[in-house]
């Protein structure tokens, strides 16, 4: 059995071991990532699991980091948007979001990028309906979703080795 106390616990984030000290009770993983570990990529917009902006991978499962009690994530492998590609070298999904016009204000984007990576890991060539259902936990207020679907489809086609 693992025990974490708010005085000190350890999280495994993006392949690194990170100590969290003097946390307050009840801090979510989202809060700890942003405010204690300086990883600002996950965004908070509802803190109810109703927008997906804070999506991260925990043991390869896409979850809302606002609904993960940070101290309960000890021993799990946490991957945030900062952990999927080095600065300036975006993944194919990230580049497709830029190229397809899937980004406007960009606040939902890190969460959607994580959700898209997770989807394409499990389903290499999702149908449009599968894309819509799999990403339906990620709210975007700017784009109306059309360009995001285009971005996901572009990646699926490119990974298959398809050209135009």
């Amino acid at each position, binding site marked *: 059995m693992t025990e974490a106390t708010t005085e000190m616990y350890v999280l495994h984030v993006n392949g690194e071991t990170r100590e969290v000290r003097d946390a307050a009770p009840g801090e979510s993983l989202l809060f700890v990532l942003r405010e204690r570990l300086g990883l600002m990529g996950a965004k908070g917009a509802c803190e109810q699991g109703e927008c997906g902006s804070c999506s991260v991978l925990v043991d390869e499962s896409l979850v809302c980091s606002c609904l993960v009690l940070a101290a309960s994530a000890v021993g799990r492998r946490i991957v945030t948007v900062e952990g999927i590609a080095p600065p300036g070298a975006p993944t194919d999904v990230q580049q497709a979001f830029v190229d397809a016009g899937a980004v406007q204000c960009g606040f939902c984007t890190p969460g959607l990028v994580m959700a898209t990576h997770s989807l394409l890991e499990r389903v290499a060539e999702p149908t449009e309906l599968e894309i819509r259902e799999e990403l*339906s936990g990620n709210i975007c207020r700017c784009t109306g979703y059309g360009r995001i679907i285009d971005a996901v489809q572009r990646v699926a086609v490119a990974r298959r080795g398809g050209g135009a």
Partner: protein
Amino acid sequence: MSVLVPTSLDAARDALSANPSATVLAGGTDLMVEVNERRREVVDVIAVDRVAELRAWSHDPVSRTLTIGAAVTWSEIEDAPFLAWVPSLAQAARTVGSPQIRHAGTIGGNLGTCSPAGDGLPPLSALEAVVHLTGPGGERSLPFAEFMTGPKRNARAAGELITAVTVPVLRGPQGYAKVGVRNAMVIATAGVALVCDADAGGVRLALGSVGPVILRCPEAEAIVAAEADFAAGRLAEPALRAAAEAARAAARPIDDHRSTAAYRRHAVGVLTARLLRRAFPHD
């Protein structure tokens, strides 16, 4: 504050016995909303999402039952093999929150929260599920109807842990239908679960979001049981209508910011009729 993360049921039970006031954390999708909104303070937490026994499920072909560990997630339940064994529960699983919520949220958490709008509960009610608990006084099992005692209230005692739920694998059609104002990620305005037991010639209907607890509809069930031809998949239109009307009458809905009592009652009638029509496609 401390957070314990046991990996075995013994360890979890011992931890909870030692600290009965500790908060049991499953997927976090209900609890953390309350924490984030400052409606709940957590001090000592026992996170049960890595307890091996709770993460497991088993199918017993002899007794034709399925026992699902409390920490099995909705995303597991929405797909095969659950879809074949307990289709109403799997269909309900697919309507729980968002994909992210379904990856984290568990069947045990749904039972622990016991919201009348919990999507997993109408199928569990209609399946006449048995809820298994363990605690300082040993193990006990309760029928769902005795487990849920009110809105967000249940029979779990302090120091007790929900370990699993057992449901029958039945022959016969099942379904769950849920009304919300959005086409995804929405709290049920009204939900209906239908479970047929073709071997016993019985039908069970359970209603969510239209009462303080999940409501069964004995009158409607009796009408269908008396009139339906399970082998032929036949239920005459007048009987179907009478059953839907009885379900409507069984609802005890309220007005709130999500909908009105009148609409909820109406929706229960419509959904019941449609579920019955899908189950008995022949007039």
